[in-house]
């Protein structure tokens, strides 16, 4: 059985170009706006520091446990997915996530999260397009 793959982000390397968020938004929502992405890249100008909120695909996902509607499931890759048809928009998953990685798209009234670009054999777009290798795809063992 292949190792479970995880995202690993490096805040120190990030420069805030938003290529990851825009690619994510484009692939999943078909429009260009960083706020439509499944990850958040933020910058603190006062400190010139960047921070990436992203899904860790936890072994024991708090988001999944918190969902009262059975809208979240774990696929064979170890990735938590949201079934929008079952989602009751309660926000429990977003509240439970310790990594701020479940995003609410207000204008679309939907909760969304990283699916590691399911269906894209080359892997997640955020990793492919990061010019500074701040986003990496790694196995659980490598991440340790």
């Amino acid at each position, binding site marked *: 059985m292949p190792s479970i793959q995880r995202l690993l982000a490096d805040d120190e390397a990030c420069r805030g170009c938003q290529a990851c968020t825009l690619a994510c938004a484009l*692939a999943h929502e078909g*429009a*260009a706006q960083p706020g439509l992405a499944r990850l958040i890249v933020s910058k603190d100008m006062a400190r010139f520091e960047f921070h990436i909120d992203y899904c860790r695909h936890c072994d024991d996902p708090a988001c999944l446990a918190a969902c009262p509607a059975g809208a979240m499931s774990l696929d064979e890759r170890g990735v938590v997915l949201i079934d929008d048809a079952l989602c009751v928009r309660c926000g429990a998953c977003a509240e439970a996530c310790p990594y701020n990685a479940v995003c609410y798209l207000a204008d679309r009234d939907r909760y969304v999260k990283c699916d590691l670009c399911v269906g894209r054999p080359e892997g997640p777009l955020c990793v492919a397009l*990061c010019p*500074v290798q701040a986003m990496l795809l790694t196995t659980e063992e490598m991440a340790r």
Partner: protein
Amino acid sequence: MSYGWMGRLLECDLSSGSMRERDTLAYVDAYLGGRVLAARLAWESIPARCDAFAPENRILIMTGPLTGTLAPTSARTIMSAVSPRTYPYPWYTHSTLGGWFGPELKYAGYDGLILHGAAPEPVVLEITDRGARLVEASDLWGADTRTCQLRLKERYGQEAQVLCIGPAGESMIRFATVQHSEENAAGHSGFGGVWGSKRLKAIVVRGTGAVSVADPEALLRETLALGVHQPTPLSANTLPGETYARRRAPVCSQTCTFNCQVAQYRRTADGRRMPAFCIGPVWRAEAGLQATAYEGAGLRVPPTPNFDLATETHLHELCNQLGIDMWFRQVMQPWLIRCRELGVDAIRGHALCPEDATWFEHLMRDLAARRGLGELLGEDLARAMDLLRGELPEELITLGRELEFDFGFPAHREGRFWDEEPLPFWVISAMMHASESRDPTIGAHQSSMHLAYLPLADPETARRQLRRLSERVWGDPEALEPGYENKAPVAIWSQDQHLTIDSLTLCDFAFPQLVRPLGGREAWEQADDILGDLDIDRRLLAAVAGRQLDREALTRIARRGLNLERALLARAGRSRSLEEGLASHFALPCRDDGTRVDAEGYGRLLDEYFAARGWDLERGWPTGETLQGLGLGDVAAELEVLRRQERA
């Protein structure tokens, strides 16, 4: 639904605070966006011979259809207005800046801004999803650009993006910048002073809307195919002590996924990272500084000394914070050092100590406040020479004028004082210098900088490759052969390409991709065909906006823009007689190969270029036929009236 464009322009009368919206889509077929759209709007709204500081002057801030999308480097923002820097009198010109402002403006629902009038008190223009309004900003007046941005981010959130001026803009010095983020600026054209004259301290924008993309899959495909690469095989982008990720590092703009030479960073004394490119002496090693020295035809530009790293970092940041164009130092410091070499130790009672970092910092603060020596030099070097003529040795006056030979803009991409450009590259630049509203840095980054460095690295390899490239791009293998004739096609091609880039918008360091990514010098030396993909811009436009425009259509739009800019120059009173004044600079020997032209030779360059553009040889103004052919009949009619008035 419109793909690419948001469909609205916001027009704000700063005098009254009134706002109105205009339809972008009424313009995009003919003017696309960005710089070409700005030129059209300027033609329609800025009065003839308008002063830069007059309330009637318009500040145009434009994005393009690609801005805010994933298209690589597409976050560029165009700013234009009548500039206070242009010498000897104000005329319409432009600047571009990277960063994150343009995308955020589109997310707030606007393709561009048109600002006019003058507010009675300092104001901030606030733009959010809820709309736009002017907010009283006396508390921010006097704040440096970093403080101003941080305060506005405290109020509007870190995601808000800010354009603002510093004390230099408030004092309306002629080379004051409009700043954004740490390093991005509309720098050269002095628009900070225009903002100051309108008491516009800042624009803060926060939007949550999205740019609609016609074919998201195609945009992703194009972006992934472009990948991460260096636009030129010779750019040294590695810095000692940096990790691999950081060598491949940073970006100066949203969606810039390229590894270009602009992204050279160093660490500041307190651990922050600062860009190290295009800021001349700030980071140059001693050997590099010697290379900036120039001697020829009786003129000497002395090398500019470095201060220590911490001091240079401080001065660099101070420039950004005061809102002063960093290039002021490229011209003023060597000029001041030359003053000292010639025994001039004071000007109008102000002692000169340009080798002293503390004195230099005081000069910068005086410039920003227009006091002491800053009152004189805040007029910029070219105008200061007029004021000092007769007070200083004539060599200093001549040097000051040549350092800002291009209508008050710092010498750049001209093969003499700054930049390595052997024949024929400086000839191509010379045509662009004469015909454009400002120094043609943008148009010359690809055609001159990226190509001109190749023969300097290895003449034989470059000649072989450039002949093949010339044949394919311009249909003439001789197009880049060293010489003075038949160079207009390359100059015109470069300008047309860059009008397109500035209208989409894309970064001129990355596009057009005249040289394909080669991965380094060894691969370059072994390559026969170095031509890149010149249709990336078309494909990105098709993916984002769903419009299949061929090269001819894009070129026609670009030419509309350049001819509109030229007509705006004519309206301001500029014509060939003024442009012939640039001949003295190109009579100086080229720093690489010693080549030059006399006034007669320079005139022949103008003849060739004007004729190829469809401009009259007497004034260098677009002919009626040229303008009619571009669908600019209203412009043709006004220029005809101007011609009649001049003849009378």
